[in-house]
């Protein structure tokens, strides 16, 4: 599953606030991660959860690529593989053109410093028994960089994320959620990384604090020329931080494109449904908004539907969707590939007036039965 569109990246062309050259920094090719499912008394291998099932994307210097999708779509697993916290089942991760799986240990160590991760849960990701100073200094110590000016570096990092020098002596429980997320950020920045994997960095925070952290992430990106892989289920947040967006569903990317591509001219029905599902903080248009309510749940990744994985919830599904897996292709040749047999190729704004689609049996009639959609 290669993306012809990646070669000419529209994110580079239309990127907003970019001082960066946008050259390729990290590339992921046909990445998969299967977790074995064991059953019975002998732990027989009973199948695989195909958490990530063939994903390609490129991270460009100084830019943000967001992976969006609902729980179980494989976005976090993908992020963990990029940060080398999980070993891929197959596929390649190329950093500055070098395959990370083939690097000798010493070089991998250096690369690990370049790719850092920040986690979602500010309460679970910091050790409660370590002071803030030790938490932030730990990566420096591990990489043998603490002795020379380590304390000073910690103070600098605290300042960078908007905390006070005296906070260094305190422990995580003394901080609010937003402050803890900043501590996690300072730790992730300690080794001067080039790439930051941000796994739902603001999802656990209240709105007023969330906005502070988002603005800070954006400012740091500009100042330090950081490249972000931003993982989130929240499309509103994603719209604010990314140049490029990849929408994931059940372990695969179903659509990728620039921010405007995804929000103004979504092609894949799943993207259209996701966008229409976001509650808009403006009651004025709530009567006329085009709503698409999907029926049912995301199927199990251990037994994904044949053909197109989205077909069981799709209102456009036909016979071909059951038998043929749609390939992620760039139909219009503008760097906006989607994986659907019946893509929306005319720009439609998903939230504007129009006929709604309701697939939820509880809140209206399901659409007329279509062949092939079960």
């Amino acid at each position, binding site marked *: 599953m290669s993306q012809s569109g990646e070669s000419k990246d529209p994110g580079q062309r239309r990127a*907003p*606030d970019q001082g960066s050259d946008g050259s390729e920094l990290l590339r992921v090719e046909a990445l998969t991660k299967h977790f074995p499912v064991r059953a019975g008394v002998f732990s027989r291998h009973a199948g695989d959860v195909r958490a990530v099932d063939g994903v390609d994307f490129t991270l460009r210097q100084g830019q943000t690529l967001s992976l969006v999708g*609902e*729980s179980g779509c494989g976005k976090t697993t993908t992020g963990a593989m990029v940060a080398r916290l999980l070993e891929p089942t197959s596929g390649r991760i190329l950093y500055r053109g070098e395959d990370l799986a083939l690097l000798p240990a010493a070089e991998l160590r250096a690369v690990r410093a370049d790719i850092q991760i920040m986690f979602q849960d500010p309460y679970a990701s910091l050790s409660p028994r370590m002071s803030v100073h030790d938490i932030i200094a730990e990566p420096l110590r591990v990489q043998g960089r603490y002795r020379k000016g380590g304390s000073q570096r910690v103070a600098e990092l605290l300042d960078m994320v*908007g*905390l*006070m020098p005296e*906070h260094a002596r305190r422990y995580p429980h003394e901080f*609010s*959620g*937003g*402050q803890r997320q*900043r501590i996690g950020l300072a730790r992730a920045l300690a080794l001067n990384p080039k790439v930051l994997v941000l796994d739902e960095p603001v999802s656990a925070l*209240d*709105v*007023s*604090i*969330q*906005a*502070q952290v*988002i*603005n*800070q992430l954006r*400012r740091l990106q500009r100042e330090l020329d950081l490249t972000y892989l931003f993982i989130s*289920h*929240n*499309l*509103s*947040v994603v*719209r*604010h931080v990314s140049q490029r967006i990849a929408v994931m569903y059940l372990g695969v990317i179903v659509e990728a494109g620039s921010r405007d591509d995804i*929000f103004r001219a979504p092609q894949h029905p799943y993207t259209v*449904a*996701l*966008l*229409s*599902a*976001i*509650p*808009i*903080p*403006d*009651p*004025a248009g*709530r009567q006329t908004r085009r*709503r698409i*309510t*999907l*029926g*049912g*749940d*995301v199927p199990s990744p251990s037994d994904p539907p044949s053909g197109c994985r989205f077909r069981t919830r799709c209102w456009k599904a036909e016979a071909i969707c059951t038998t043929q897996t749609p390939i992620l292709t760039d139909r219009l040749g503008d760097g906006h590939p989607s994986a659907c047999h019946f893509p929306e190729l005319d720009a439609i704004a998903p*939230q504007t007036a129009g006929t709604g689609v*309701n697939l*939820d*049996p*509880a*809140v*209206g009639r399901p659409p007329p039965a279509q062949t092939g959609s079960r």
Partner: protein
Amino acid sequence: MVEQSPAPLLAIEDLVVEFTTDDGVVRAVDGVALVINPGEIVGLVGESGCGKSVTAMSILGLIRPPGQITGGSIHFRGQDLRTMPVAELRRIRGGQIAMVFQDPMTTLNPVMTVGAQIVEALRLHQKISKAQARNRAVELLKMLGVPSAEMGFCQYPHQFSGGMRQRAMIAMAIANDPALLIADEPTTALDVTIQAQVLELLRTTQRPAGAATLLITHDLGVVAELADRVVVMYAGRVIEQAGVGAIFAGPRHPYTLGLLTSVPRVDVEDDELRPIPGSPPDMLAAPAGCAFHPRCPLVRQRCRNQRPPLEEVADGHWTACHFHQELIGADGRQLFAASEVSA
């Protein structure tokens, strides 16, 4: 105090709830007044710790030590729920007033089938046979879109997905046709497409039945989609309330305005978020005067020592701000101009 209709369904006045902790007494709810009229969807909004959930729990008498209701009254159809005998309150709870919680996994009984739990809820409040209750339960599950409801009836909560569990919770809550449904963050734990399903359900099941809903959430989008009237809380107090249109189009409290400028939106072409600086106060040491003053762009000396009362500034629009006049036609984006770093 806040009188809007001759016969409100629920009227809370001057509610005070305190929690005794090792470090002192925390006043989680501090003089809250709230009215819900029949058939109305009221959104109760605020950030974590503002007292919105505690207010909801108080209605059903679910505050347990170290928490305690220390003042005020809660009238439901004219009866004071606070002074009511426990046996009587039990009849109302789950009957005329029902509640949906944020996390269905911790509220559903893991060792009872979903069906048995709905049947229990039904038979607790209605004199019907087991068979009748069973049929009604299956009907409810069907109505809420649980696929193969007959089978779902016999399953345990862990066999349900998150969205299905929340549907089961709603089925149980509306089983006895409550006059008031209290939904505490009903969609926060759900994915967006599932959230859309549940919101649609709340919209379609509650409204036609003429029942009222108190919708508690931190998500302004959810409120804008569903609510008729919005009540905003900050640091244990109601700081603004108005019809949903007025709250979003012309908020008269700087906190409400700040919340609106903080939210990232998919429908507005603007890159910079304008967060409210600072963070919500520590309730053990709440600021004097207006609790919002340390974070407020309009702050003056008066705000530091005099607490603004909640007063009606337009028809049905109440706010607690000394300088609410200055917010008429104010540009929130300018007021909260990118003040990003604050610890």
